[in-house]
Every structure is written in structure tokens, then in C-alpha cells.
């Protein structure tokens, strides 16, 4: 009965303790078991155990109970912390999934038995069973009957030997008949040596078992699949934070908001009184001063209220940054690198909606920096650099907020980027040679290149840099890159302070009004019809010496196209280095608009960022120019004319 009331508090509290535990364990791993540190870990586990037990979450309670005992043993100096960090981090991960499940469904699903056993084993001094991460590749014989059943049976065997973390194709896909002949698994097993024997059989052509770190990357794992394009922002790591939808607001702030709301009520009464006096026959112009006065007051209150509410939406960068030490640790471990993370500007505040949305892009940049930027310790030594690479994440306030992701690795090899662009026929060899260094660096944001480069090493994981840039632009920001060969790469994300209000141009098109965020508007021009040319399906013109593709908003949005106007009114938008003119019917004006979501019923509407309410109470859609242009023209065609 009380559960529904207590749950939000519990979830928020759990998140905090999980954060403390995670940071603490990382510190434990780096610096060893300091008494104060172990004490604070113990306290968090203990508190979490208490509240989980009180709410009847048995698995969380059991796991934290075991963690508590292990930490107690550590505190008493009975055991050293050697090898414990991995186990404790696995526990933190399990607790996190449990927390998520409880938040979403009210039930605990994640199994904790294995972890509890390992914690017990560690505590008993018997070294916890070590599991070796391996990759297993199985190829079935062509004449193998019932391949799917065979593959599932093999998986069963593997499961008995340890934990299977990932299977390609997935079990559902296998059941659905997706299995060709090859099955790849990532697993952690007790004895890799026995696998060969266990897994081979009459129907199996070959079995390869590789230590996970040595296995060549399999691009199928890197590819996030067809839905990945829009999903970059929904990295599981990110959503775990995004799921925390509650805010803690300073009481003082709330009081100020309440006061302002009180003022609004007063204003309403004033307007009512004016209306009564008008109705009673009082002369209107005598009341004019009062109406103006009340309106001015209302305006001030609205502005203040807006500012106060905006402040309640702000969160410190810490919310985002704090997950990176752990993330980088795991990445570095996997790729055999040594990376130190430096965090700066943790208290810089950013609108929570932006914070949530840049998590994905930021993560991608960090992953790139560790995977491709920072060299292996040996290579760094050879180059006379310190063995440990440095990854700096910083935030500071300028015009808006600037977030920096900087590594001291090898930098972007522009020669390679040029070569790649030529290979992929994005550029002719001559054009590639003509590019300045800066322009060559910018090529990494070209969609064709960043996709195709996935399996080489410019990008990281099947998500192109163009998607990262698009993600940043979706929140009205921009992404720049600075790089120096063998010195490192720095990405700068320039972000607006808030997403809730944007400056925008209102345009009319086909009888509707639309809003275009000013961050992407370059200029507004009128082009005489005589200077508009058709190249294939695309209209173009020449503006100050360079070719400008024109896109008809009418056509993309299925609105009636006006019959041959003599001038085309175009909003020139830019994204990346590309400029495109959006042909509209008219421009109404420029101003601030409050961004509203379209709601989850409609989901994501292509080409539309959200909606806003205009002065007359009607809704206008906020257009996403970059997406709109993609809807209109195939990338290739743009590449030809642009």
C-alpha cells in the first residue's frame, strides 16, 4: 500500500548509493583499501540493504547483504582487496538492473544467485571462481540437419560452462531461422580449454575459442542494426539515467515560484475587475491605462516565472560526467590501454533535457577517444609519451555551455581520411588533394565516410560521427573538432543553456505556420525564379558564387505547391559544412518560442523536432532542417550538387 508512495524516494536514494558504490569501487581499485573509503562503501551497501528489505525487494536485499559482509571482512583487514573490484562492479551493475526493473515493472528479474555465490566464495577465502572472457565461433557443417536446434543445444552446453553474454545471431533470431552456419558467442567460462572438446561434434565443422581481448573485432557486434541511426541517443547506459524522472528542488526556489503564481492570481482578479467595470458601462478609454498596467505586470511575472522554472530544470554536469570513470575503465581494460580520466566543471549546470540527450553523443566521443585516439601503453612509450593516456572531460559556461572531450592520443590521420573518402568515391582524388587540413578533418562527419569507416578505425561502433553531430544539433548545439597529429584530438560541443526555449524564425508554408530554430538558420534570401535551375529532381541556384541546393518544404510536407512564383523565398539553413535553401511561402518573424514535445503517442515525427504554441493559441510544428533535407533529397544527389 505504502509502496507506491515510497518507491520514488527509494529509487532516487538507490541511484545515489549506486553512484557512491561505483565511484568508491573504482577508487578502491586505483588506490587500495583505505579505511575511510571502505567504511563509506559499507555504509551505502548497508543503507541500500535496509530500504530494499523494508520494501520487500529480496534480491537487492540479499545482494547488498553479501556485499556488506565482504566489505566488513575487508574493513577488518581480514582480506585484501585484490581482484574484488570486478566482482563488486558486477554487483553494482546487477543492482542497477534490479533498480530499473523495479522502477518499470515493480518486480525483480535479474538473477543474483551467481554473484551471491561468488561473494560468499570470496569471503570464505576460497578464491572466487575466475571466469575467463572468451569469444567462441562455431561453424556448423553444411549438411547439419536442424541447425537451429543444434545451435541452441550448443548454447546450452556453453551455459553450463559459464555465462554467455552475447550471441550472434541472437536466440530469437536463431529460432526465427536466421542462423546460417556460423554462431558467435561472447562468454565467460571456467575452463576455456575444455570448450573445444565439448562443443565439437559430428555436425560441427569448426570451433574456435579465443581469449576475448585477442579476438579480431567482429563488425556484426559493432553494428547496432538498422534502428541504430535514431537510437544513438538511447544508449542503455544513458537510458538508465534518463529513467530517473524525478527532480529534487530547493525549497527556496519552490517558494519563489509559488509567490509568482500568487501574482498571477492577482493579475487575473485585476483583469476580471476591469471586465466588470467595462460591462457596467464605464468608458473604455478610461480603463486603458489600467489594462496596459496589468498587462505589463503580467508580462514581468511570466518572465520571472519562466526563469525560475527553468532553474528547476537545471542539473549539474556531474550527473553526466560521473559515469565516465567507470565507462572508460571498462573500455580501457577491454582494449588493453591505460587511461586516466580528468573531469572538470562538474558543477556547471545544464538543462536536464539537454543533459539527457547529449549523453549518447558524448559517450560515443569518449569511446572513440579510447578506442582510436589513445595509443597502447607500449606505443606511447615508444613515442616518448607517458604510458597512461589522458582523457579530459570538461564543461564551462561561455555564451551557452561548452563541453570538451579531449585526448592526448595520436590525432586524426587526415591522409587516411582523404584516402578513405577517395576509395568510397565521396571525393575525386583531385578534390581530396585540394582540401585544406581543416576540411579534411571535417570529412569524418560525412555520412558516407563515417558509416563505411566503421570497420576500419576512424569511427567506433557502427554509429557514424555524422549521427553524433546530428545528435548534438538536435538539441540546438554544434560540434567542432580540433586535432593535431600525434598530440591528440579535442571535440567541442557548444550547447544552448536550455532546450525549453529557443530563438526561432516563424515561416508560413501551404497555409500552415512552421518554426525553424535560429541555430540552423544562416540567412533568408529571395531568389528570382529565373535564377533557379533544375538538376535532376533537385532545384538549385547560385548564391554569391556557390551552388545552393533548394528544397521545397511544400513537397516534403505534402502541402500544395504554389503555382510558379516569380520569386522563391528561401530560408538558408546550414548543417555541418552544407548549406541548403528551404523554399517557403513567407516569413512571419523571429522570436523566442517554448518547445513542447509532441507526446509519446505520435512518437518521433520525421523532420519535426517538436511543437510550440503561437500567440493565438494554435500549435506550430518546429522543423528539423537537417532531417527535412534528408527526407527530401538523397545524400548522394546532395553530394553531387553541394
Amino acid at each position, binding site marked *: 500500500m505504502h509502496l507506491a508512495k515510497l518507491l520514488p524516494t527509494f529509487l532516487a536514494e538507490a541511484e545515489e548509493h549506486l553512484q557512491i558504490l561505483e565511484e568508491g569501487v573504482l577508487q578502491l581499485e586505483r588506490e587500495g583499501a583505505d579505511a575511510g573509503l571502505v567504511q563509506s562503501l559499507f555504509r551505502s551497501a548497508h543503507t541500500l540493504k535496509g530500504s530494499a528489505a523494508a520494501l520487500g525487494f529480496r534480491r537487492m536485499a540479499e545482494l547488498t547483504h553479501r556485499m556488506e559482509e565482504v566489505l566488513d571482512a575487508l574493513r577488518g583487514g581480514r582480506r585484501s582487496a585484490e581482484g574484488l573490484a570486478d566482482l563488486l562492479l558486477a554487483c553494482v551493475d546487477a543492482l542497477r538492473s534490479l533498480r530499473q526493473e523495479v522502477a518499470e515493472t515493480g518486480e525483480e528479474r535479474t538473477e543474483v544467485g551467481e554473484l551471491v555465490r561468488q561473494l560468499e566464495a570470496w569471503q570464505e577465502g576460497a578464491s572466487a571462481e575466475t571466469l575467463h572472457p572468451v569469444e567462441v565461433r562455431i561453424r556448423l557443417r553444411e549438411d547439419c540437419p536442424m541447425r537451429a536446434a543444434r545451435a541452441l543445444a550448443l548454447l546450452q552446453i556453453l551455459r553450463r560452462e559459464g555465462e554467455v553474454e552475447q550471441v550472434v545471431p541472437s536466440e530469437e533470431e536463431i529460432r526465427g531461422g536466421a542462423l546460417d552456419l556460423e554462431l558467435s558467442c561472447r562468454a565467460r567460462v571456467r575452463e576455456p580449454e575444455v570448450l573445444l572438446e565439448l562443443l565439437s561434434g559430428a555436425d560441427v565443422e569448426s570451433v574456435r575459442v579465443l581469449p576475448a581481448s585477442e579476438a579480431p573485432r567482429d563488425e556484426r557486434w559493432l553494428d547496432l542494426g538498422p534502428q541504430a541511426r535514431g537510437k544513438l541517443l538511447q544508449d542503455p547506459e544513458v537510458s538508465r539515467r534518463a529513467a530517473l524522472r524525478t527532480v529534487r528542488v530547493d525549497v527556496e526556489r519552490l517558494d519563489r515560484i509559488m509567490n509568482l503564481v500568487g501574482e498571477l492570481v492577482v493579475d487575473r482578479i485585476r483583469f476580471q475587475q476591469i471586465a466588470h467595470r467595462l460591462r457596467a458601462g464605464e468608458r473604455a478609454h478610461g480603463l486603458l491605462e489600467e489594462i496596459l498596467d496589468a498587462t505589463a505586470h503580467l508580462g514581468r511575472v511570466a518572465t520571472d516565472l519562466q526563469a525560475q522554472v527553468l532553474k528547476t530544470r537545471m542539473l549539474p554536469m556531474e550527473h553526466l560526467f560521473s559515469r565516465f570513470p567507470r565507462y572508460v575503465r571498462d573500455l580501457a581494460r577491454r582494449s588493453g590501454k591505460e587511461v586516466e580520466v580528468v573531469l572538470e566543471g562538474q558543477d556547471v549546470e545544464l538543462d536536464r533535457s539537454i543533459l539527457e540527450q547529449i549523453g549518447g553523443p558524448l559517450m560515443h566521443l569518449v569511446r572513440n577517444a579510447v578506442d582510436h585516439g589513445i595509443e597502447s601503453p607500449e606505443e606511447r612509450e615508444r613515442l616518448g609519451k607517458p604510458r597512461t593516456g589522458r582523457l579530459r572531460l570538461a564543461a564551462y559556461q561561455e555564451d551557452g555551455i561548452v563541453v570538451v572531450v579531449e585526448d592526448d592520443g595520436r590525432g586524426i590521420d587526415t591522409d587516411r581520411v582523404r584516402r578513405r573518402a577517395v576509395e568510397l568515391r565521396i571525393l575525386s582524388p583531385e578534390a581530396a588533394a585540394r582540401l585544406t587540413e581543416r576540411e579534411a578533418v571535417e570529412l569524418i562527419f560525412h555520412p558516407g565516410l563515417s*558509416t563505411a569507416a566503421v570497420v576500419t578505425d576512424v569511427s567506433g561502433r557502427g554509429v557514424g560521427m555524422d*549521427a553524433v553531430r546530428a545528435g548534438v544539433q538536435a538539441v540546438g548545439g554544434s560540434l567542432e573538432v580540433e586535432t593535431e597529429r600525434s598530440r591528440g584530438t579535442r571535440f567541442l560541443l557548444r550547447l544552448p543553456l536550455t532546450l525549453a526555449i529557443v530563438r526561432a524564425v516563424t515561416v508560413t508554408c501551404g497555409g500552415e505556420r512552421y518554426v525553424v530554430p535560429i541555430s540552423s538558420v544562416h540567412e533568408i534570401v529571395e531568389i528570382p525564379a529565373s535564377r533557379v535551375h533544375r538538376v535532376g529532381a533537385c532545384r538549385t541556384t547560385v548564391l554569391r558564387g556557390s551552388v545552393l541546393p533548394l528544397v521545397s518544404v511544400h513537397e516534403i510536407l505534402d502541402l500544395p505547391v504554389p503555382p510558379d512564383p516569380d520569386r522563391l523565398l528561401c530560408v538558408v539553413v546550414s548543417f555541418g559544412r552544407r548549406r541548403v535553401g528551404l523554399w517557403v511561402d513567407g516569413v512571419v518573424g523571429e522570436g523566442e518560442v517554448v518547445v513542447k514535445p*509532441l507526446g509519446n503517442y*505520435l512518437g518521433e515525427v*520525421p*523532420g519535426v523536432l517538436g511543437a510550440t504554441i503561437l500567440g493565438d493559441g494554435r*500549435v506550430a510544428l518546429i522543423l528539423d532542417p537537417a532531417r527535412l533535407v534528408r*527526407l527530401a533529397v*538523397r545524400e548522394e544527389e546532395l553530394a553531387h550538387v553541394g
Partner: protein
Amino acid sequence: MDRKATGELEQHLVVVRLDRERYGFAIEHVHEIIRMQEVTRIPRAPEFVEGVINLRGQVIPVLDLRRRFGLPAGERDGATRIVVVEMNGSRVGVVVDAVLEVLRIPARSVVPPEELLATGQVAFLRGVAKHGEGLILLLDLHRVLEIAEQQALRDLEPALTHPEGDGAPR
């Protein structure tokens, strides 16, 4: 199908008119009823999505129930209303020809959908209630709001944007 609802003694309905039929919304899903207003259309949305409106600062989608059911388009007049329903935390407006009454009907007068003849709308119904001389078609709001068609539409989108498929930025 909602067994529990039909097992109860009474059902509380908002009854609306659409074409020549009377339909009933379970009252617990009805948030409010507002007059028809100007709707902002959504590009590339399914045909039955009329657009979005401003409901006191919240932007909500509006469906045309006639188009949803494949009925002929009707005249919009002074009686046209938007029934704002709330389900799974989303608010959605549904355009109907008129709102007739709010009424309670005994559960035993409800005929479950298995016994109904298959017609175009039957998929959207959770039963039919006998009331007075006529019948009230009870809406299965989950089905009405289901946007499977739109999902299919959205899945098509990458293909539309990048006809080659593999050229899509991932």
C-alpha cells in the same frame, strides 16, 4: 478483452454519435470533452491522425474517428466535439459528431464481441450494449488508439530516405 469490466454490475459510459451509430467510451478513460478547434496537421502521419491541438499548454494529437473506422467524412458543425481520452499516460483527442449523454448500463446487457457479426469496426469494439430501443457500440480504446499502422509507416522511413538502404548513416 477486459473481462473485469464486463463482470461488473454497471458500466459508466460517455455516449457519442458517429455517423448513424452510438458509441460508448468507458468514462474512466475520458479526461474531458472540448469543442472542435483548429488543428495543426502533422506531415507524414497516418491518415486518421488529424493533427495536434493545444490543450492548455500541452500539445496533444487528435484522431478522426470516422477516418479511423473507414466511415465517410462527415460535416463538422456546432455539435462536433473532441473527446480527450487518457490511456497509458498519453492524452489523445478523438473527434466525434456529437456527445449525446453520460449513462450507466447494467453489465448483463452487454453482448461480447465474439457474438457480433464481423463488420469494419468490429475490431475496435469490446462489445455491444442494448439500451432502450437501440444499441450502443462499446469502444475498445486500446485498439482505437493503437498506432500499429504508423509504426509500419515509420519503419518504411529509412528506406524512403535512403533507397539504397546501405547508404544510411548508422
